[in-house]
């Protein structure tokens, strides 16, 4: 059975290649640190399951140390000039869009179609990981087709990938790091503490106050943790169910749906939701780390008001 391990190995080899190419790129004055960063990440993807928990923890500390002290510098992989790109755009036309669509198309087809593939009685592809494996397959298919069609140098995909990865820099592991932090916070009991605090601070004497405590609490907790999924169990067990559902007789489905959406308003407002708000600033070369959040903030705040009003209007009615 092909599992997610194969995809991790593929990603690990990619990061290892970034490390090797970085080491041989004299244009980056900090190439040793940058190369060590990609090498550690590659090691984590290739061998993370065999290093033991403390070994993996030391990788985390190493990545953080390399990123924090002295910076990573920026490599200059060989690529095309803007003029050559305009020429390429004229030459290849809309075929470039079709190539770009291969990844999501294969990812989608694989997610839906892998179930049908069997070797004997057991599935060929681990059904729990189908979407991730399909994404990796989409990347491989797109690369093969693009290489055959565009005929670039063999090292081009890895060098171009390194160009973008260097641009994203340490922010590339930030979402994964934050997920890991969320797990440690859960072990340390941070969630319960927050729920006690919210329960103690916010008034909950009327149905309206309970709804506001729940939606604003969801957004606020998500703001701090960066993830509405972390806020939802805590806020729902601490505020939503005991007050809105049990005390005031609200509908749990409406509360749950609008509660989660209130949390998403928090997601749009926090640098802690790094994959939504920080990774794009690095990919789009925006020097202001808050640029995407600023563009979203009015929508997020208005939607928090809308979700609160909708919940108050609907939750006690159905």
């Amino acid at each position: 059975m092909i599992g997610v391990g194969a995809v991790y190995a593929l990603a690990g080899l990619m990061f290892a290649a970034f490390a090797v190419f970085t080491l041989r790129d004299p244009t980056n004055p900090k190439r040793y640190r940058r190369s060590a960063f990609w090498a550690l990440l590659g090691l984590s993807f290739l061998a993370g399951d065999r290093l033991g928990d403390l070994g993996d923890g030391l990788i985390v500390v190493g990545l953080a140390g390399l990123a924090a002290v002295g910076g990573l510098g920026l490599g200059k992989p060989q690529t095309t000039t803007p003029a050559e790109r305009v020429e390429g755009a004229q030459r290849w036309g809309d075929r470039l869009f079709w190539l770009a669509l291969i990844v999501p198309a294969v990812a989608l087809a694989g997610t839906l179609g892998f179930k049908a593939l069997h070797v004997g009685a057991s599935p060929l592809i681990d059904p729990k990981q189908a979407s991730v494996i399909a994404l990796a397959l989409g990347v491989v298919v797109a690369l093969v087709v693009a290489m055959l069609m565009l005929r670039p140098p063999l090292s081009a995909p890895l060098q171009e990938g390194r160009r973008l990865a260097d641009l994203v820099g340490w922010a590339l592991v930030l979402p994964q790091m934050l997920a890991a932090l969320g797990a440690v916070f859960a072990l340390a009991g941070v969630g319960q503490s927050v729920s006690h605090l919210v329960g103690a601070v916010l008034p909950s004497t009327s149905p309206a106050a309970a709804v506001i405590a729940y939606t604003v609490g969801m957004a606020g907790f998500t703001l701090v943790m960066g993830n509405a999924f972390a806020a939802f169990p805590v806020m729902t067990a601490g505020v939503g169910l005991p007050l809105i559902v049990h005390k005031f007789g609200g509908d749990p489905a409406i509360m749950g749906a609008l509660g989660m959406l209130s949390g998403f308003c928090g997601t749009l407002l926090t640098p802690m939701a790094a994959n939504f708000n920080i990774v794009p600033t690095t990919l789009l070369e925006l020097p202001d780390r808050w640029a995407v959040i600023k563009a979203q903030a009015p929508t997020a705040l208005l939607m928090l008001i809308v979700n609160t009003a909708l919940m108050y209007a609907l939750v006690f009615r159905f």
Partner: protein
Amino acid sequence: MLPLIGIAVLTIGFTVRLNPLAVIVAAALTSGVLAGMAPLAVIAHLGKAFNDSRYVTLAFVALPVIGLLERHGLQARARTRIAQLAGATTGRLLILYLALRQITCALGLLALGGPVQMVRPVLAPMAEGVAQARLGSLPPPVLRLIRAHAAATDNVGQMFGEDIFIALASILLIKGVLHQEGVDVAPLQLSMWAIPSAIAAFLIHGARLSRLDKRLARLAAESADAERQAGE
């Protein structure tokens, strides 16, 4: 209450712009040690959770494909292609994308968008290209504003589209949490009650995007004025 100091470390560290990766390690150590764990045990927990969360980083395996297509002019093509459309504006383009993103996410097709696969290679260059075709050359801060709005629209579309799809992680999480607390709801009920918010999000963000067009026109006129004055 002591483990909450970890959150304070995190917030302060982010606010004073220390490196976020280092801030995360410090916050984990603070919370873990205050909850009574040994420092090395906290590092091991952090390492295990990091290893178990590797799927979060997998979206970046698409970087070589995107980079390769950029090398051959994907962004340049996106810029010129959209400029050929009569009546296109940055705001209208992003409103159309918002609708498509919400609908495809509501069908569970999250992988069609995202910053790596869609915003950087296609949507942002299109949004810039159409503005430049309409308003002439724009100074870098205005182009950055357009790119930020492209990323923001992708996020808003996903957030207020995905919860309409019944088989997605967030719906399953809502159902699971309520089930643990002894309350059973059907996924379809949950996704149905996400629809009013999805419509509201489209109206609110769409209205903001059409105002973005006016703002861009004003910024373009200001920068043209400034250039003229500098030229005199």
